[in-house]
């Protein structure tokens, strides 16, 4: 039971490792960005899970409810998502320019082209 009650966190760890593995193991520059996104998403879930309170509602002031989720981690993650989007956008636009300059987005081919200079 105790293992299941931390189900969110198990998923966080799995996603984190999957993302990190893709980031390291893939030679394709776009796939690396995908890995980075999965890695970052796992952290978003980590924060959001931490803000959840069992039986709590959305954090809106109302006389009917007294227990609500902690809104601060959610707000923080909103910022982190924006940062993540900016990072992906910048990374992908770099990939576009790398494709224009090198004609490929495979890391090993680019490395070979740089070495032959």
């Amino acid at each position: 039971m105790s293992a299941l009650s931390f189900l969110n966190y198990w998923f966080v760890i799995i996603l984190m490792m999957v993302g990190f593995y893709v980031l390291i193991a893939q030679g394709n520059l776009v796939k690396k960005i995908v890995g980075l996104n999965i890695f970052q998403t796992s952290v978003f879930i980590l924060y959001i899970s931490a803000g959840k309170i069992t039986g709590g509602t959305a954090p809106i002031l109302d006389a009917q409810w007294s227990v609500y989720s902690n809104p601060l981690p959610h707000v923080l993650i909103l910022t982190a998502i924006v940062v993540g989007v900016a990072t992906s956008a910048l990374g992908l636009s770099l990939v576009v320019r790398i494709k224009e300059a090198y004609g490929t987005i495979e890391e090993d081919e680019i490395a070979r082209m740089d070495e032959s200079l």
Partner: protein
Amino acid sequence: MMPHLPVMQVMVPLLAAPLCALVRNGRLAWAIAVASSWGAFWIAWEIFQVVHSIGAISYSLGGWTASEGGIEYRIDALGAFVLMVVTLVGAVVTPYALESVRKEVDKSKQALFYAAFLLCLAGLLGIVVTGDMFNVFVFLEISSLSAYALIGLGKDRRALRASYQYLIMGSVGATFIVIGIGMLYVMTGSLNMANLAILLPELPANRTIPVAFAFLTVGVCLKLALFPLHMWLPNAYTFAPSAVTAFIASTATKVAIYVLLRLFYTVFGADYSFLEMQLGTYLLPLSLIAIFSMSLVAIFQTNVKRMLAYSSLAQIGYIILGISLFSSTGMTASILHLFNHAVIKGCLFMALGCVMYRLNSVELDDMMGLGKKMPLTMGAFLVGGFGLIGVPFTAGFISKWYLIQGALEKGLWPVAVLVLLTSLMAVAYIWKVVETVYFSEDPGSVNSDCSEAPLGLLIPTWTLAILCVYFGIDATLTTFGASSAVASLMGIGS
């Protein structure tokens, strides 16, 4: 105006950045960039004086205090000192950028260059002024993202690959930092550094805090390029436009070191970081390997920019070495070297920018006999090179002196010997340049009809060269700034 200085420090470059992007005219954008970076320098100077007359400044953003969950900006002696470093380099590099950028960046992108440059400056300053952990992450990403964009503006296509590599490594580092911050928040319910410093020691023994400590340390070390997390740095520095290299090499890694100090001393506390987590035993060998191996690699480089990039990695090693000694002398050495290295490397990379301006290359083979054709440029390079080696009467000597003293205080005489030995290695790589530039005949290669760089480049370069000598002869201001920074850190830590 005066009570709002901490927020103005960030707002001035942050608001000037979109203005630069809107005007779309390179020269006008440059004027805005110069005005705001000088404004930022003036604000930093005012803050420095206020901090040293009445003590640390606390500023609640929007009037919400930290206890109400608001964001606090907090500047103590260390913050004021680092602000001075960053804004000084910013104020010198922006005037320099006009000629350099005109040569190295496409005309259509020049205004955007200044926008990204100011965003980077704003991000770096934000990291230093804020007293909120999550704010550190946001500003770190503002400065990093704009740095990736700036590096990608380099003319060589390898700049794109360097920028991409930096982006991947930097984002992993940033994500590690967010994980660490999240764990701290989950355990304490606070993001304010001063609050965390009170709450963390009260927690019962648990596994989360050491894990958070590890994530934060590794994440920040990625950003500051400590060996073995340095792979992104040499290419990024080599292929970025000259003005960008000069700025980022002197500020970005320095601010990351500031974050490290904040974490170790303010947030976790020195006792926890150094006694319980035994940080010194990890950082000391890493920094020694960084100093030795990176100096060795620098000797074998033929591209002078890449040589200095490896030398930067070694210099970061010196700074971390001072921190790992865990004594006030070692810390003073680190903080002094943080300033001195910023001035020295800024000067060297700007001198190389002058060479790049005339030759379109910084390969050693193309620089033969350049000393006669560009005497002022190479003179500045020589002064910077002396500073890097640590010749007496240059800034580098002062910080190395403190570093060796710090090592001897702890009875680590092999470390002191290694510092001296690696200084000799710096002599080796600087000598390689000096020999090529002054003592070899020009074989009639690319530089045969080149002349001295324009004044717009020379004046900023020599400003830093003169500062490098000035702070080597009269180090009162820098040692005062550094020792009061150490006092404020150690005061909170104990």
